[in-house]
């Protein structure tokens, strides 16, 4: 499987991108608003100053008189350290102030303050102009008061607020990214939980997943469940097929064997007899292999829905030994039983199959005129069936590998076998919650196989 990016990372990046965009947007907005607010404040101060000056206008002896009020100028220092310019004109003639200040663009109406931005003395200035009509004698004289200020204070306030907004935006962004990461992880948790639940399962557990999952994961879940269902069906079908095949092979083989034995008894020709014995041995092997295949299929089938009947391991061992007594006797192999009662809960058919395969192996690999020991004992809450032979042992290869399907020991020599026996035993024991141990016999010769099962 090639990992192509992580959903979590992608989600986090996406959310972080959104957060960055929002941060940038909010910064820009705050900066704009701050500038606007600062500009409006300056406008208000300029307007107040111009109005204050206009209010001191009076006429004396037919002339417009003016005394610049101190407050009109001191208030202009409120925003920042801005240069101040002013001009008062009466009927177009300069009364006082800076003559070269740009004239107001708009036509003024009395009492209304007009603002305007212009360039003066190499700097951008903001101007507020107000018109007041003063009666000088009988003549109404229009007086225009203009107060102007550079924009350094506004720039400074706006820049400060902008810096503050930038810091806040960065903080917001950092918090948003952290939250995004948490959110991404939280939203992906059900997925991880399902993955964990699937990987926790045993190798043959193909039951459908029954978990509460978010709606988005329902298709995945049902697809997974359908896949497992199909997989289970397919496995069952192939096991059925194997069982059927084994069964079908075994019955004709039994017929062939019987016929071969009859022929053996009837013929006197030694060469012929020899050939017939070979046939019988080969049929026996085929029959055993077919039996093991059947056993294996049975184990796979029955382990899914394991029966929990009370079984005495000692009784089981005795019974199994009895069925193999004849085979052993053929090669002068003695079966010695050392039995102590050990109650377990399980499937009698499966346990018999496991025990039979192990015992069969032991007999098969034992030299003639030796003893195979079968012991049943209990210790630490476990029942233990140990089968020890005096055969070639388990060889030098990895012992655990011998339980793999169709794997045979390195020192099996010319002895025929399918390599399924230990696999069956292991699967059965594992299905019962126990385990299989393989080791060399204590005297260094022969193998010692133990089926360890929890006591009921």
């Amino acid at each position, binding site marked *: 499987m090639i990992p192509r990016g992580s959903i979590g990372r992608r989600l986090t990046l996406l959310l972080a991108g959104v957060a960055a965009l929002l941060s940038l947007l909010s910064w820009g907005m705050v900066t704009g608003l701050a500038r606007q607010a600062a500009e409006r404040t300056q406008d208000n101060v300029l307007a107040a100053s111009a109005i204050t000056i206009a209010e001191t206008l009076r006429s004396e002896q037919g002339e417009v008189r003016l005394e610049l009020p101190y407050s009109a100028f001191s208030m202009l220092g409120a925003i920042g350290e801005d*240069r101040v310019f002013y001009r008062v004109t009466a009927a177009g003639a300069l009364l006082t102030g800076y003559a070269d200040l740009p004239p107001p663009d708009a036509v003024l109406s009395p009492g209304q303050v007009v603002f305007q931005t212009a360039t003066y003395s190499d700097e951008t200035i903001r101007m507020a102009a107000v018109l007041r009509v003063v009666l000088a004698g009988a003549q109404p004289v229009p007086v225009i008061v203009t107060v102007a200020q550079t924009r350094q204070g506004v720039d400074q306030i706006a820049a400060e607020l902008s810096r503050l907004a930038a810091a806040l935006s960065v903080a917001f962004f950092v918090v948003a990214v952290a939250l995004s990461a948490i959110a991404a992880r939280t939203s992906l948790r059900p997925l991880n939980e399902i993955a964990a639940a699937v990987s926790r399962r045993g190798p043959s557990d193909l039951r459908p997943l029954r978990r509460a999952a978010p709606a988005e994961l329902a298709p995945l879940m049902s697809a997974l469940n359908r896949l497992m269902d199909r997989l289970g069906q397919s496995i069952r079908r192939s096991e059925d097929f194997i069982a059927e095949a084994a069964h079908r092979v075994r019955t004709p083989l039994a017929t062939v064997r019987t016929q071969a034995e009859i022929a053996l008894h009837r013929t006197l020709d030694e060469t012929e007899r020899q050939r017939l014995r070979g046939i019988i041995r080969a049929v026996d092997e085929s029959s055993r292999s077919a039996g093991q295949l059947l056993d294996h299929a049975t184990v796979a089938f029955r382990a899914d829905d394991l029966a929990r009947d009370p079984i005495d391991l000692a009784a089981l061992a005795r019974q199994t030994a009895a069925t193999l007594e004849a085979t052993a006797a053929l090669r002068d192999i003695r079966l010695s039983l050392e039995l102590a009662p050990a109650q377990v809960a399980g499937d009698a058919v499966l346990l018999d199959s496991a025990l039979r395969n192990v015992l069969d192996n032991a007999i098969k690999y034992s030299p003639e005129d030796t003893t195979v020991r079968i012991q049943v004992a209990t210790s630490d809450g476990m029942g233990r069936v140990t089968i020890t032979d005096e055969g070639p042992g388990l060889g030098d290869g990895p012992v655990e590998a011998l339980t793999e399907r169709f794997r045979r020991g390195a020192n099996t020599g010319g002895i025929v076998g399918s390599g399924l026996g230990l696999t069956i035993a292991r699967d059965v024991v594992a299905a019962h919650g126990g385990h299989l141990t393989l080791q060399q016999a204590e005297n260094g010769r022969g193998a010692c196989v133990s089926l360890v099962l929890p006591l009921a």
Partner: protein
Amino acid sequence: MRILGLALGLILSWASTAFAYEVEEERFYPGTGPGVLRIISTADLAVFAPYLAAFRAKRPDIGIAYTVTSSADLYQAIRDGAPFDLALSSAMDLQFQLANDGFARSYRSAMTADLPDWARWRDLIFAFSAERAVVVVNGERIAGLPVPATRQELIALLRDHPARFDGAVGTYDVRESGLGYLFATKETRSTDVYWRLVEVMGRLDPQLYCCSGQMIDDVAAGRLAVAYNVLGSYAAERLARDSGGRVQILRMEDFENIMLRTAIIPRHAQEVEAAGALIDLLLETGLRDTAGDWPLPPLGQTGGADGAGFSPIRLGPALMVYLDPLNRRTFLAEWENAMEQR
């Protein structure tokens, strides 16, 4: 060098004629390098020489041409674009107007950053000394009378003893002295007793002066009993100390005028770097904690022992209000009415 000095002196004299300002004092200090820092200042050489000496010790390569003129002439010279690299003035309103109208050049250094906000404006104008206006009295001439501590008490004193103070009260002629005008306008805003005081003085045949030095001299000589609103420089204090009680310096407790001596680098300056270096030196002495030997008081320490009520005249657009010709005319008319009652 002498020839060079002479030549420069000639150039300066020529310049002064071209730009129409009255040179009161002039001095050229040659430097080892070709650079010459041209300073126009209102401070007498006697006051400012130690600063120049300190600067020359630091920067021997720079020559200095020091020109003393009145604050009004200084203002006009800089406005007319006279070739100076540094303008030092006690008229903070005129200096402010120069800075506001774009005749100053911005300067920034570690020293200017250390200045408190009230001592600078826009990196254009820097205060390096804060000086208060005081009342100087002749102890002999007011012997037996209560020493006034407030303007109210001063008014009472003058009013109750017209014979003793007749013709013996001195103050700035605000029409002539920019500093006197600045003090006067500040006082009209700060206290309502100012006009009453002016009226009382006006009845006593007041002597009007252009400069505080002459006023102090006249008090010391006994020609004046009281001099009002004198710039309380160290020179005055030293004189008071040396006179053995004959000259006394009184600080008004109700309200004090504190003026900032300021520096600007004119727009047409050429030796900007040297001018900045001298500003840094002035600020260093201005920000010192101890009084030291410098002729001008530092910025912060002017509050004296009490420290309270230290409020120097603010550097800000409000300084321009009374510079407006209309306002000036109105104020002077009012002042003349009060001061010249006879």
